[in-house]
């Protein structure tokens, strides 16, 4: 099963400039592993040494932050869209 993953600007050097890549996987964790296999270096930027998604990285499935879903265990279905977005500031 394949989902599309949107890649933010700072990570596009690792995807040969692509802003979107198609990756196989049944949950967010698998997607991250398979992203790493296809584009080495991505996982260490997304995850800390324990494999947890980094503090400054937001991963969305369709329009929902995976922190509000099941984190890395969030199940994906065909056609889902995954976005990787760096945290950004606003307000005070």
């Amino acid at each position, binding site marked *: 099963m394949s989902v599309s993953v949107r890649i933010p600007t700072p990570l596009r050097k690792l995807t040969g400039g692509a802003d979107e890549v198609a990756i196989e996987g049944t949950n967010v964790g698998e997607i991250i592993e398979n992203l790493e296999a296809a584009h080495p270096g991505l996982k260490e930027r*997304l995850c800390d040494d324990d494999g947890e998604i980094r503090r400054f990285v937001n991963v969305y499935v369709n329009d929902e932050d995976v922190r509000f879903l099941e984190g890395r265990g969030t199940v994906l279905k065909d056609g889902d869209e995954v976005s990787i977005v760096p945290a950004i500031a606003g307000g005070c």
Partner: protein
Amino acid sequence: MNIVRALKCRECGQEYDIQPTHVCEFCFGPLEVVYDYEKLDGYFTRELIESRPQTMWRYKELLPINGEPTVGAQNGFTPLVRARNLEKVLGVSELYIKNDSVCYPTLSFKDRVVSVALSKAVEFGFKTVACASTGNLAGSVAANAAAAGLESYVFIPHDLEQGKVLGAAIFGTRIIGIKGKYDDVNRLCSEVAGKYGWAFVNVNVRPFYAEGSKSLGYEVMEQMGWKAPKHVVVPMASGSLCTKIHKSIKEFIQLGLIEDNGTAMYGAQATGCSPITKSVKDGTDLIHPVIADTIAKSLAIGNPADGYYANRVINETGGWAEDVSDEEVVDAMKLLAETEGIFAETAGGVTLGCAKKLIESGKLPRDESIVLCITGNGLKTQEAIVDAVNKPRIIDASLKDFDALAEADGFEAAV
């Protein structure tokens, strides 16, 4: 004199040349401007600063632009008010309001960060500037861009207060309302920024933008007679302001402009969106994002980008964090207006409401100097208080009718 050294990752320490970028390529950590302060030795003195015009740019060496500002040259230098009436009500001995509700030109502290961000954007050669905003930033980007002859796009949640929508739209900006919360706006803007090549003040020029907040801290210290307060209470959305005021104090100490007064930082949030306060109260540095639900819309950021750093500053300085209900926000807005004649926006109600609780709980001592940072103007958030203030009493244009009214109020005619 330009003392800017580089952009540096706050997580892994990797340094980058000055460029419009905001996250570390290696670990995704946020980038921050770092300076070679020693270059200012013997040059950047109180006398030099005092000799300059009263704007935020009197501290320009500590703001990350080359030479003179091209946008917002008049911004900043707002009043620091000794709040003697509020001191009596709260039972404290030395209380000040840093009143950025009258910041030029759009009545919020965002005019500080925007003038830095847009001056930097002009330096980088951008012609179009943009932002994701809870309202104040949108107005400030729109106004300052108009004055600087820049094109602008501002992105806001679709359900903002009317005053904030009008307060941006009037400047002829392209204003886009997003169906969703601020965090949704933020996510979209992060993707738009990657695609369109504009200067997004809180995305790709954020490291420069955020530094503008330091000017609020510099002003407080100068206005107190070159002294840092013992305690500073700030509203928190992303948590950036808390960290930048702390940075401003550390810089002034390092430059020998003030003595270290052991200043403690306190953060204020609305209960309906209090992920940073919760982390402080729970004794952890893990910030759990929340779905924001509060009338303090300028602080309604459920996933605060600088939450971790604000938490750390609060802990390291011996401060604390508090949160207040929407009802307490309104009460505090009224209290500030009725005691000091300052009409703050909802975020100001959050700041004062939290300060009141911190004083009552003993977290803020009653006999030491306290500064409350009021960051926006109440005229922009009228919806919050429209049912909480007195309506005019309507009478005919008749002296007799007024006499009856005055008598009921307990006033007698003087002649």
